[in-house]
């Protein structure tokens, strides 16, 4: 099939033109503000400008919310100039402008929009009202019913607290194995005198580069209860480690739960399976990160340590760990956030939410809201997840920060 090349390029050139236009407008706007911020009519003027901007957007078919948002922004900027900047910080303001414009459009406005929606009853039934009139009715209980419902127990016996607990377990288990196995593999690859590191490294990164959909699908086929490989593997390994004792076959590995399972119909087994798959997928990223950090530690440091008579363990504790920490801390924090919000793996492992018992908060959000297109409820649920994650991250910062701060 032939490729069409040209539209993309011309379109992108146009995009650059638009961006330059937006940027020039933004810079010009700031310049103007610096010129006139001192005058007494400044604040009323920004107010007027905001109102006309809001009116303009509203007249052009935007929703009331969007109009209100873009109507207030100029006034807020005006306040910031008058109260905060006071004619100073000129360079920083110009430098920030491009990013701020982007963030306002694609982070701040969506957040405000979703916050508004979380108090509204936007679902299939009210959808046509929204399209035709732009109006969405307030949810029950002064708009709080969406939030109340998030915390209510479901008919299937699944409570919010339990899903939250499972999400935290999911994050902790995955993070632990990603970090520890990644670190061990990186140490092994970085060991002196090991040949063929390039080959090992290439093979070990395979799980990261293969598209997740197909990787998870293959895993799912392997986890099949009757014909999948995993259960066969478990049976064979159990057989390998079995022995006979007074006429009975004893399989010691089954004592620790190592036995064939109904991986999809049994909720906790499904959760285990999802963890295994996600651990498998995520190890390469951490491994390569740690490997990079280890390679940046000069060998002379170790040599100096061995001259001082340090043992392997001591070198690891006093040389490797402190030097790895600047990588480990941010990697674990970001890794935790990304794992907490990881929609893909569980969604695909449960066959798009078909199997129950392994849902974490994000997949539950997806299932509860988008099967029935309950947008208002979805917004409320998202905010709850968002708030929980913020709190957990603050805690994680508190735990890792003090020692980290002392090294910088």
């Amino acid at each position, binding site marked *: 099939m032939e490729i069409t090349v040209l539209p993309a390029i011309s379109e992108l050139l146009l995009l650059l033109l638009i961006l330059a236009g937006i940027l020039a407008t933004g810079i010009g706007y700031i310049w103007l503000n610096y010129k006139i911020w001192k005058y007494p009519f400044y604040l009323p003027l920004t107010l007027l400008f905001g109102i006309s901007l809001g009116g303009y957007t509203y007249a052009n078919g935007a929703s009331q919310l969007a109009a209100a948002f873009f109507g207030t922004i100029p006034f807020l900027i005006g306040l910031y100039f008058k109260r905060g900047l006071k004619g100073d910080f000129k360079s920083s303001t110009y430098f920030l402008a491009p990013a701020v414009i982007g963030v306002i459009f694609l982070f701040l406005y969506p957040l405000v929009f979703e916050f508004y929606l979380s108090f509204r009853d936007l679902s299939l039934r009210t959808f046509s009202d929204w*399209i035709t009139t732009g109006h969405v009715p307030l949810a029950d209980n002064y708009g709080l019913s969406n939030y109340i419902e998030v915390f209510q127990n479901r008919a299937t016996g699944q409570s919010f607290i339990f899903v939250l607990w499972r999400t935290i377990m999911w994050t902790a288990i995955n993070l632990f194995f990603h970090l520890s196995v990644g670190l061990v593999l990186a140490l092994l690859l970085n060991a002196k005198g090991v040949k063929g590191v390039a080959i090992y490294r290439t093979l070990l990164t395979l799980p990261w580069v293969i598209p997740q959909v197909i990787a998870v699908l293959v895993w799912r086929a392997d986890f099949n209860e009757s014909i999948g490989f995993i259960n066969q593997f478990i049976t064979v390994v159990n057989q390998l480690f079995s022995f006979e004792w007074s006429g009975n076959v004893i399989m010691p590995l089954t004592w620790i739960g190592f036995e064939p399972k109904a991986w999809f*119909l049994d909720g906790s087994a499904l959760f285990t399976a999802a963890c295994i798959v996600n651990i498998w997928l995520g190890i390469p990223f951490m491994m390569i990160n740690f490997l990079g950090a280890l390679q940046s530690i000069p060998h002379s440091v170790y040599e100096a340590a061995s001259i001082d008579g340090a043992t392997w363990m001591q070198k690891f504790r006093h040389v490797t760990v402190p030097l790895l920490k600047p990588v480990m801390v941010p990697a674990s924090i970001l890794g935790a956030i990304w794992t907490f919000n990881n929609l893909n793996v569980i969604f695909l492992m449960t066959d798009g939410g078909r199997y129950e018992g392994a849902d974490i908060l994000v997949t539950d959000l997806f299932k509860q809201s988008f099967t029935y297109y309950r947008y208002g409820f979805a917004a409320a649920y998202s905010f709850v997840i968002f708030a929980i994650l913020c709190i957990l991250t603050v805690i994680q910062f508190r735990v890792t920060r003090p020692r980290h701060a002392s090294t910088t």
Partner: protein
Amino acid sequence: MRFSNFLKGALAGLAIAGAAHAAPTKISFWEQDSSEAGKEMDKWISVFEKKNPEYKIVRQHYENEELRSKFLRSSVTGDGADIVYGPNDLAGVFNTAGVIRKVDDLIPANKFNPAALNIVKLKGSTWGIPLSEGNHLMVFYNKKLVKDAPKDFATIIENGKKMTNPAKNEYGLAMFQSEPFWFVPLMGGFDAWPLETKNGQTKVTINTPETVKALQFLVDLKNKHKIIPADCDYDCAKSMFLSGKAPYHINGDWEANAMREKFGADLGVAPLPLVNETGKRATPLLGGRFLFVNKAITDKKLAGVKKFVEFITSKNVQLRMATRLDRIPATLEARNAPELAKVKTLKPLIDSAEFAKASPSEVEMRAAWDGLRIMVQRAMSGKETVAQAVKTGQKAADEALSAIQTEKKTKAH
């Protein structure tokens, strides 16, 4: 075209007004059919455009769920496709959201098979234009392993037991056993049905003695007769049958072509068998593929859509659909055509459709699916007894139902 749209927006006023004038009216067309069907549709479109150069039809393919959420989302900004082609249950979702228009004025009702029209009739109006009937389950059997078509489930169980050998991964019956779409036919065989509409209010009826019997029957296939594996999803069932590890396979008409390609003359196709206990046939859900029209469509485009609909429901196109895509045509003209009787591959599909029940298009069915899925899974995994699972299923469906019907409730109070 897209590029010039973009220009218009970006440099408002500088757009070339002349170019837009002569250009044909663009009708955007979203579908979620198979790739073979996609190729066939491209042919329809190119023949249609040759006849009607004043219209241009732009086809886009999406996956099922993506099509739904995308169409809803785009409708907010008025950018949804002008026509959407998909299974009948789209009618419930789109109609509830108020994003599609009635089509009674677009088509003569007497042109179509009444059963097909009935599927997308909600609240007394027709919401989709039927193109084909189908999407129903049937039994595929491997003639190398079993000679005759199964008449009743007793035959399947009897023959299946002979074929079952778990050590070799061989089982009597391969089907997507924990999916409610495969369970609802059994419900029909036991006189149970998941939805009930009374006085305009639709309720989910899972917790009934009949459902208990049907579910017990399914569980027995696994636990008592042991002719189905511990767990088997769609892919597993299909691959078991294809590799000759199962003599019987329950799957939909959409796989008929792939099965024929694989087995050739060794493939047998039969309607779902009788349930011995009641003497009734298991009733697959008969859906179909329909064309839905955007509510916000302009009159100019609507005229084009009308012409397009006339074209694709013409005898020639309908018969092409039957021969090339294994679809049961929806127009009476094509169904009664002598040519259709000659299409051997289609006959078993029509035969099995005879015993089918119309697939509910109401949005409430989504809640029923959710409840049924939980029920079947819990019962099949042994996590709950059949009686418990039925109760859980009902509860889950009711909860889901209240999520869909929130507004109704608040208005009533």
